[in-house]
């Protein structure tokens, strides 16, 4: 029997998962700063355990266009991780990274921009996962990234379905980065229940 029930999550478990989110986001910010070669500030991430029906709303509406970068996680824990970037943030980031003018609509991105976003996602989730791995001493490997630029609700259906197999809520970590402009990104880490247990017991819980 798993120690975790996502619908009745103990406050202490929740705090630990939040703290991992916090450290991970810190590392991700450093990675982002190196990539953009500027100073990047990060707000304290907001961690929420939400009902499925609330998640779209929490991210600015189900129909908002977003870029989602998705990776499968393997090793000592299994599951998936997703990094979502608001359309405006994705456009800004791509323009900065590639030195091109900002496009009007993220749907206009081509192969090159998709690759760049996948790489951004890969670096950010990579730094997040490596902090998790260091903290827990667990081996964590991420697959190559896949991308979707679409309505927030549609992208979210993928981790929601994975969460849905274990509970009626999902854990969302919202991070806000800023240098001269504000970038808003979201992390969704979806370990299966056994992996939750492994993470917590490796932390001495």
């Amino acid at each position, binding site marked *: 029997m798993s120690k975790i029930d996502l*619908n009745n999550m103990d406050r202490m478990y929740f705090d630990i998962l939040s703290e991992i989110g916090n450290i991970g986001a810190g590392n991700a910010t450093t990675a982002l700063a190196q990539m953009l070669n500027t100073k990047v500030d990060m707000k304290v991430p907001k961690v929420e355990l939400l009902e*499925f*029906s609330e*998640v*779209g709303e929490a991210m600015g*509406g*189900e*129909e908002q*266009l977003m870029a*989602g970068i*998705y990776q*499968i996680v393997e090793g000592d824990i299994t599951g998936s991780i997703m990094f979502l970037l608001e359309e405006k943030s994705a456009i800004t980031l791509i323009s900065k990274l590639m030195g091109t003018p900002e496009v009007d609509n993220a*749907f206009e991105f081509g192969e090159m921009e998709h690759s760049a976003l996948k790489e951004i996602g890969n670096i950010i989730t990579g730094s997040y996962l490596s902090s998790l791995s260091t903290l827990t001493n667990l081996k964590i490997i991420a*697959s*190559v990234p*896949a*991308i*979707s*630029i*679409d*309505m*927030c*609700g*549609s*992208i*979210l*259906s*993928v981790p*929601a*379905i994975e969460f*849905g*197999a*274990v*509970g*009626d809520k999902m854990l969302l970590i919202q991070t806000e980065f800023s240098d001269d402009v504000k970038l808003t990104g979201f992390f969704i880490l979806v370990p299966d229940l056994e992996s939750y247990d492994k993470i917590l017991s490796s932390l001495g819980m």
Partner: protein
Amino acid sequence: MSEMIKVGMADLKLCISPNAITTLGLGSCVGIAIRDPVTKIGGLAHIMLPDSTKITNNQCIAKFADTGIAELVRIMVEAGAARNRLVAKIAGGAQMFALQGRSEAMAVGARNAEAVTKILGEMKIPILARDTGDSYGRTVEFFPETGDFVIKAVGRDIKKI
């Protein structure tokens, strides 16, 4: 004045003409619109997973194709729809991400659409139209008055099925 009722993820609702009903951003989930063409009583379910019997945590009946469709039909009949007149239209079940060598794990949308088709078949509710599969998200609007099922996707023309 008619109203647009909103159905969330893992949710289902009744909708009686002249009202309309919508669910936003269907990805790998499937939207099932059911209607009694005579009484114009309709309903929409937004399911996430194919089968409640495969999962221990299954209290949320609107989350699964089997229990969700059964519940939608139940509340429609309770509202006065005739069980033997019900017809359905479905949309969603997309594969949002493509990962090489992981097609099995990524095909949850197809499995959802397949489960919905099978369950509606078993319940003898004909599927009049469908817009499932592919790799993009869909917002749907259903009008029990006419039976029109309107599908909107980013960067594509609006479709009426």
